[in-house]
């Protein structure tokens, strides 16, 4: 049986450099990642951190690979206290230039069988990446309804 693996592809009308910035700089991420300040512009061995809208640390994971603006890999272990205690999974971003646009492929894997976090990220990534695409193409991200639950969690983390 194969391990759970989530793959999502989206095409964004912006060059890879802008997509890379949006994925790694907190001042940009908070505008589309539902208020999360994500810092991932370090080198391999340094940290990826995410701070939720309530100002609490939601992630503090190792950057495993960084090749701007093509490939970024980091660990993924949410620090919310009500999260299931599972081993760290892995997120890989691949950015490919395509006629002035970017094909962005996000692969989230290294989950244990039966992972509860897998179900959450499978719902979360399409919203985050749709918001990223809207933000880079129109200047505005999304405010989808799943943010309701996220906001509650952000307050209690």
């Amino acid at each position, binding site marked *: 049986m194969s391990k759970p693996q989530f793959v*999502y592809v989206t*095409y964004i*009308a912006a060059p890879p450099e802008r997509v890379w910035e949006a994925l790694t700089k907190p001042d940009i991420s908070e505008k589309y990642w539902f208020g999360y300040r994500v810092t991932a512009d370090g080198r391999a061995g340094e940290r990826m951190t995410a701070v939720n809208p309530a100002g609490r640390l939601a992630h503090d994971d190792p950057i495993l690979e960084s090749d701007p603006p093509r490939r970024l890999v980091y660990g993924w272990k949410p620090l919310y206290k009500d999260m299931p205690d599972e081993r760290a999974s892995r997120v890989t971003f691949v950015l490919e230039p395509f006629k002035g*646009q970017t094909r962005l492929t996000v692969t989230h894997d290294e989950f244990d069988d039966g992972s509860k976090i897998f179900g959450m990220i499978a719902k979360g990534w399409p919203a985050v990446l*749709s*918001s990223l695409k*809207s933000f880079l193409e129109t200047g505005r991200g999304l405010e*989808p309804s799943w*943010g309701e639950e996220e906001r509650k969690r952000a307050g209690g983390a």
Partner: protein
Amino acid sequence: MIDAAAFKPKTVYVTYIVATPEAVFAALTEPDFTRRYFGGFAIDVEPRVGGAFRLLYPDGRVHMSGRVLDWTPGRRFSCTWLVEGIPGFDQLPECIVTYEIEPAGDACRLTMTESHSWDVPEAILSGGRAGWPAILSGLKSLVETGKAPAIAMAPPEGFMDAVRHAVSEKPWTKETRR
């Protein structure tokens, strides 16, 4: 009518679009929109359950044909798909494509589900898995910005061979006999 219960979801793609459900439904079902993000194909659909559904090349030839299974404006659009425009492809069993639109905050969530009645090889599913993200990214851009970036798609490696193999072996006939 076909037995929709015999079809299993094989590929699902979700995207959130900043628009009303009605605008997304129009983008899925009106030719002036589909031409701009769906590989140049114009949709031609009779807006009722059981109605005819086709995707047409710019010169009017039929690329894809099927029947409408669900027509719920602003909510759901589902139909059977049979590829007619590529020699041999019309020998494959038809699949079902369903679009579902749900309100989500100031946006809506569009879920595309491609379902099949037989044990489709991964190499054939790879065609849709490569195509849908490009098509639905284009739809989202078009609805939100008025522009759909040109995304030229070629069939993934092994796709055409897998289709030819399936057409000659017809594994779905063996499955039903079993």
